[in-house]
Structure formats: structure tokens, C-alpha cells
């Protein structure tokens, strides 16, 4: 039994009313790769930020090599031997400096001496680079290197600190197959040297290749730990996406005519093409891992980015939105995920946040806004969504996450539309608000098609008439939300099910 490099016990962290980590117990053994899986908002990045010294925990303890570990700043974590390679490769390097300066950046930051000894730096840099098999000239600017080499620079730099724990956050997301293989070889080498690896990823192929153990996170807690010779990948995904068979009470209405028909859709180069039909009256949920192409599908339908190929039609007419504004004019509405970044206007009150997309509905002569009309709409929507507030003039940021979410959903329910797309509308909201929002979406779903992208299986089961599974930027399965074969659904999510024969009948569903 290898020694534990790091032992975490009862770790908690809250942001305002939002409890992000609710007591994490986790050990990371030396010389093993522990894969951490979790949906958006599960708390992965908060956990990582505590380990690398960006956040301080509210409670709980972390032991590193048997000694208490409480870094006050990223530099403390680095000195103690906890190094992090970020998903965004450019976060780990200074692109305008040369390779040697980057490799020795931490020495430069803390070193004594005033003048640089270039010759000594290059020798030192060469030694560090050789240790990870990075073969580039020390004098080259990092900005001129490939992404993979840039990542190696940041790994090599981390290695110079004799790490005990290395955290890799989605490290392969922008690497080619050969580059990925080189990274994996390096990880094997680190394992052999007794470094504990915490590997965050949703790529099943990476996970199968590397994982010694899998830890699933959900709602700020560890929801499953899987180890042993034959890892239970589907179990790990199920623990991550969660499924507690809540009393799902979905009465599936008769679907109306087709609103959206798409044929031969390819969301990115190399993805398997698929067809899709979305009908009036029905609520369709899309389940899939992070990076499975859910958001890419939504963005193609909303005119944010065009699909690589494929034809779409809306109510039988060709549909090729050039921009979100164009899509809105044609009756396709879309609420993006990550509301604080993509939806909330922080300086606006509730009423103004609700009326934003349809301001012309409330304008009088000379485009002057009619306050009464705005207030009436805001009051109607606040009532319909059950937003808990004192009135439409409350600042949006004074609301809880769930109520903020209700406001930005209300924005798109205020006007009738043909297709409503909601991308992770339950992100960062409590279970009560989730049920509330879900019920209101279903209640208003007549006369339009509704597409809901879900982070968790429970959400999909609670809201949908039909569930589509996405994997590798294509549709891997379709299920009517009645007596669902969850094992098959999970297998499709993890891409371990045989591909369906011919994508054409997928969209029809019922």
C-alpha cells in the first residue's frame, strides 16, 4: 500500500449562501493517478483552488506528507510541492519571455541578485527541460512554441520544484493525439517517481488510459470512489451525474408538428453526423458529459457559431441564423449557461434584466421606453416564475442564485417563441428552485419546442418528455422519458454503448 501524499478531511467552503464544498474526505496516494470527475458546479475547481493556495477553506484539514498543509498563497503551495497545470495553457507561461526565463520564473520571482546571468540560466533551463523531454532552444520566445510545448514548459517548470502532488486540469483539451501520448508518458514517469497525480478530465479515453482510481464529485461532496483492477467507469459517471430516482411525474403530451428539423449535422470536424427533430409541445433534454457538444448544438441553433455541415429548417423553412439577434427575430430563444458571465446584467434591476431582449416591445415614440409597460411585464414574469423579491426594482445581485436564475429564464419566457433553448438552467441553484423552474418551463411548453441541456441525469428525468444523449459532438442515443433503460443511457453517456444503427430515426423519438 503506497503512502498517502495528501489526505483531505472534512473540507468545507462557502461563497455567501452557496455551499460549494460540503465536507470533502479524500486521500491521494503517492505514485498513483487519481481521476477526479464532476459536472459543472460540483466543486472541482474550488477544491483545486484550495489545494493550490488560491482560496482558503472554511473548515476541515489537509495533510501533505503527514504535515498540516494550509497554503496562504499559490507560492506557498508551490514551495510545499503542490503544482498545478491549468487547463488554459497560457495561464501557466509568460508568453513574451524566452523558454529559459519561463522555466526559471519562480526563481526569478523569489531569487536574490539583481542582474541576470544568461549563460547560467540557459544551462539550468536546459537541465530542467531535459528532465521532461522538452527539446526546444532555450532562447526561443514561448509565444512561438506549439500549445503542447508550451504546456510542457509549464510542466517542466513545475517539476523543478520536486513536486509531491501534481494537479492536471483537463490537460489534453487542446492537444493532438501524439502530443497527448507524450504527456501520458510523462505522467507515467512521474508516477514511477512517486508523485501523486490528481487528474481532472471528462475524456473517457484519457481516463481509461491513465486512471488508477476514480473519484466522483457531486454537489460539493465525494459521491463515489472507485479503485481496483477493473474500474467501474459507468458507476463513476453515474456517481458524478447523480440519480436518486426522485418521484418523477412526467405526463408526456402528444407532440405537435416539427419545429426544428436538422439533417446531416456535424458540429465539428470529424464528428459523426446526426439528424434532429424537435416538435411542438415537447420538452427535450440533452444529457452528456462536459465537452460532449451540448453547448455546441445550442450555439449552432442560436447562430453563435455555424455547424461544420448540415441543413436546419424552422417550421419547414430553411434556417441558418447569422447571429443571436437573427435567431431571436426568427423565434429561437436561448439562455446560455453560466448566468453571471453570460446572462445577468449586474448593473440592472430585475425589471430591466427581464425586458432586455425585447425592449422594442416597450418603446413609444422616438424609442422612448414606456416604464409602465416594462413594469407590467416584469411584475407578470416575477409572478409567473415565483421570484422571491421585494419588487421589480430590486438590484439583481441582491437575489439568491436560484432567484437570479428565475429572472434570466423569465427574460425568455416573456415573449412567445418557436424554440426555447435552455443551457444548464439549473446550474448553481438549490433543489427547490430547480423544481420550481422546471415546473414553470413545462407549464409554458405548449406551442413551442423546448430544448434543455442538463448537467445531471436527475434534471433531465425531472423535466423532459424525451432525453437525447450526446457524446463526441454527436447524438449517441434517444430515450422516451418513461421506463428508461438507465444502464443503456449511462453507457451512451460514457461512450461504451454500440453506436445506434443509422442516426436518422433518432430524432423522431416517440
Amino acid at each position, binding site marked *: 500500500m503506497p503512502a498517502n501524499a495528501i489526505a483531505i478531511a472534512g473540507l468545507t467552503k462557502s461563497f455567501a449562501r452557496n455551499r460549494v464544498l460540503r465536507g470533502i474526505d479524500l486521500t491521494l496516494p503517492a505514485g498513483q493517478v487519481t481521476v477526479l470527475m464532476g459536472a459543472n458546479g460540483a466543486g472541482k475547481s474550488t477544491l483545486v483552488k484550495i489545494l493550490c493556495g488560491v482560496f482558503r477553506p472554511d473548515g476541515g484539514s489537509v495533510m501533505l506528507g503527514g504535515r498540516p498543509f494550509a497554503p496562504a498563497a499559490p507560492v506557498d503551495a508551490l514551495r510545499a510541492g503542490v503544482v498545478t497545470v491549468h487547463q488554459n495553457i497560457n495561464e501557466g507561461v509568460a508568453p513574451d519571455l524566452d523558454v529559459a526565463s519561463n522555466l526559471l520564473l519562480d526563481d526569478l520571482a523569489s531569487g536574490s541578485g539583481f542582474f541576470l546571468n544568461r549563460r547560467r540560466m540557459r544551462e539550468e533551463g536546459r537541465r530542467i527541460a531535459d528532465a521532461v523531454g522538452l527539446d526546444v532552444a532555450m532562447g526561443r520566445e514561448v509565444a512561438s512554441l506549439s500549445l503542447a510545448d508550451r504546456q510542457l514548459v509549464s510542466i517542466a517548470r513545475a517539476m523543478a520544484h520536486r513536486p509531491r502532488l501534481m494537479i492536471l486540469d483537463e490537460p489534453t483539451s487542446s492537444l493532438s493525439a501524439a502530443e497527448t501520448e507524450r504527456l501520458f508518458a510523462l505522467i507515467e514517469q512521474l508516477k514511477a517517481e512517486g508523485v501523486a497525480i490528481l487528474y481532472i478530465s471528462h475524456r473517457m479515453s484519457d481516463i481509461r488510459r491513465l486512471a488508477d482510481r476514480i473519484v466522483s464529485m457531486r454537489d460539493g461532496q465525494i459521491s463515489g470512489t472507485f479503485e481496483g483492477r477493473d474500474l467501474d467507469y459507468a458507476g463513476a459517471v453515474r456517481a458524478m451525474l447523480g440519480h436518486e430516482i426522485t418521484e418523477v411525474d412526467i405526463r408526456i403530451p402528444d407532440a405537435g408538428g416539427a419545429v426544428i428539423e436538422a439533417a446531416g449535422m456535424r458540429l465539428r470536424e470529424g464528428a459523426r453526423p446526426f439528424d434532429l427533430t424537435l416538435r411542438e409541445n415537447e420538452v427535450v433534454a440533452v444529457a452528456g458529459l462536459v465537452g460532449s457538444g451540448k453547448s455546441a448544438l445550442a450555439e449552432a441553433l442560436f447562430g453563435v457559431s455555424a455547424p461544420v455541415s448540415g441543413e436546419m429548417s424552422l417550421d419547414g423553412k430553411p434556417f441558418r441564423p447569422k447571429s*443571436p439577434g437573427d435567431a431571436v427575430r426568427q423565434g429561437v430563444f436561448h439562455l446560455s449557461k453560466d448566468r453571471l458571465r453570460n446572462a*445577468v*446584467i449586474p*448593473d440592472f434591476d430585475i425589471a430591466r434584466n427581464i425586458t*432586455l431582449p425585447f*425592449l422594442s416591445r*416597450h*418603446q413609444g415614440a422616438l424609442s422612448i421606453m414606456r416604464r409602465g409597460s416594462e413594469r407590467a411585464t416584469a411584475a407578470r414574469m416575477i409572478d409567473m416564475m415565483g421570484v422571491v423579491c421585494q419588487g421589480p426594482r430590486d438590484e439583481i445581485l441582491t437575489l439568491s442564485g436560484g432567484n437570479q436564475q428565475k429572472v434570466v429564464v423569465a427574460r425568455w419566457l416573456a415573449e412567445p417563441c418557436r424554440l426555447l433553448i435552455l443551457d444548464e438552467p439549473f446550474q448553481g441553484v438549490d433543489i427547490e428552485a430547480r423544481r420550481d423552474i422546471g415546473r414553470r418551463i413545462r407549464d409554458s411548453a405548449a406551442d413551442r419546442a423546448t430544448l434543455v441541456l442538463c448537467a445531471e441525469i436527475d434534471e433531465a428525468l425531472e423535466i423532459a418528455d424525451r432525453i437525447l444523449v450526446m457524446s463526441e459532438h454527436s447524438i449517441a442515443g434517444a430515450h422516451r422519458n418513461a421506463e428508461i433503460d438507465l444502464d443503456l443511457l449511462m453507457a451512451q453517456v460514457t461512450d461504451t454503448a454500440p453506436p445506434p444503427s443509422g442516426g436518422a430515426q433518432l430524432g423522431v423519438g416517440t
Partner: protein
Amino acid sequence: MSRGFDPVEFGIRYGFLLLMAGLIVGFSVAQPAFMSARSAVFIFQSVAITGILALGVTATLVVGGFDLSIGAVATSSMMLAAYAQVIWQLGAIEAVALCLLMGAAVGYINGVLIVKMRVPDLLATLGMMFLLMGLQRIPTEGNSISTGMALPDGSNATGTFSPSFLMLGRHRLDVVIENLLPLSVVFLIAIAVLIWIFLEMTRHGRIMYAIGSNDRAAALAGIDVNGYRILAYVISGTLASFGGILLAARLGRGDVASGNNLLLDAVAAALIGFAVLGAAKPNAFGTAIGALFVGILLQGLTMLNAPYYTQDFIKGAVLVIALVFTFALSGRRGRARH
């Protein structure tokens, strides 16, 4: 919502207006002549041109941008107005139209540089500032433009400023007292009201504030973010060129040495405006008050015989205090900025 009297909240909202009222009372006690219609009009006139420029820069601040080229646009417009009349011998209407068109075009180019070429706003407008400062002097080889000036080919310029053009900067209306109200003050007030209505009450103003607050969310709500960004720079350029027209009409010549302070004074007025009524964001009313505040302060100090070289120091101090009001005090209320 109001839970009794909160002195901090009160200070944030009304502190700056109270400070201004206090200044007026203080100056009036120290120098009774300060409190007269003529003195008030003089203050307004002294801030008319910077005020108009400041209202333009406010539009760019609202969409989260910044326009450093306004001073150079104004002086270019002044030189163009003079060149058009003195050398090309155009009439007042043609000269004004030409200047406004130039301002709008410069604003459009600024907008395109920022939106389409993705040049950061400060750098794009700084570059435009240098470009215009040089360009406006090329046709006259660095000389000021006035009737009778020697032209490069040896002859003298025979054109004159049209009287109706000069009226724009010099005419005074009879309001209560004869020859009291300069036209330029009327323009300032009219433009301030128009910009205020545009930003606060129309759909377009609402959209511009949404862009300044969260441009991603605005784009995803179907708003043409780039179009409105460009519009803001066009408004800024057009108003700056109008300020230049008033300057040319007041001076009666194209003076290469004037207009040096326009940019900094206008920007100061717009930033002081953040503190008025605790808005903590760019707004037209605050900008107008900010311009007025600086005018009152300088007029009062001048009447108290303060030396001219203290002016910039005083302006700087006011600006710093206003920014503390805006960011330190109102930040405590938990307004989210990012």
C-alpha cells in the same frame, strides 16, 4: 426599502451636490459679485465646449469604452472650419456640415478600429489623437488660419469667416438682461438634455448601458453589440467636432495653439460625473454637473485672485476626490464590478 437615515448612503448620493452648493455659498460670501447673473453665465460659457465634449465621451464610457481623440477631433474641426471659410471660401452651413461629417467619420473609424480590428480602445483613440494633431497642421504648414494669411504659393487668403458662423460662438440672446445668454450655453444645455434623454429614457440608451455592464450577456440577448459600440464613438466624434465649431466661432480664426486642455477637462468632467447622485457609472446628468463644478470652482478662485497656475492642481484634486467618492464609498454597498 428605506430603513431610517443612513449617513453613508446619504453622503454617497448627495455629497457632491452639497459640496457644490457649499462652494457657491462660500464664494458668494467671500466675493458678493460671484452671485450674479453675469457671473453665472460666464461660468456656463467657460464650460460650454468642454461640457459638450464631455457628454460625447460619456457615451463611449457607457458602452465600456473610452475616447482619447475628442480633443484632437475638436481642434481639427476648428482648423477645418477656418480652412473651409478662409481658403475654400465656403459659407457657414457648408463649413458646419463639413466639420460635423468629419467628426462623425473619425468616430466611425475609431469604432471600426476597436470593434472590427480589435485594437484596444485607449490605443486606437490615442493613435487617432496623434494622427489628427499632425494632420490638422499639414495643409497650413503649421500656421494658424486667419483672413489675409500668407498662403504657401505666395498669395494671401482672401476668404472671411461668415458672420452667421461667428454668431454660433459669439451671439448673446436677450434673456431678462440684454445680451445675457451666449448661444454656446444654449447649445450646451440642449445637448445635455438630449444626451440625457437618449441615455436614460430610450431603448438605445438602455442597450448601451447593458453593453457596458456585461457585453457577453447583451450579445447573447440578441443585441448588436458592435453596432452600438460604433454608434457611441460616432456620437463622441460628432459632439467633439461641434465643440470645435464653437471654438472656431468664438476665436474667429483657426488657432493652432488653442484647445490643448480640452481632452483632459472633458474627461475629468465625465469622471466627476460618476460621483453625482451616487451613480457610480457614466451618466449625462453627472457629466453636466461635473463640468459645471469645475467651472464654478475656477471662476470663484479667479474672482478671489488665486493665481492661474493653481487651476490644474485644483482640477486634479477635485477629480481625485470625486473618484474616491465613486469607487471607495459606493463600492462598500456591494455593487458588483468586474
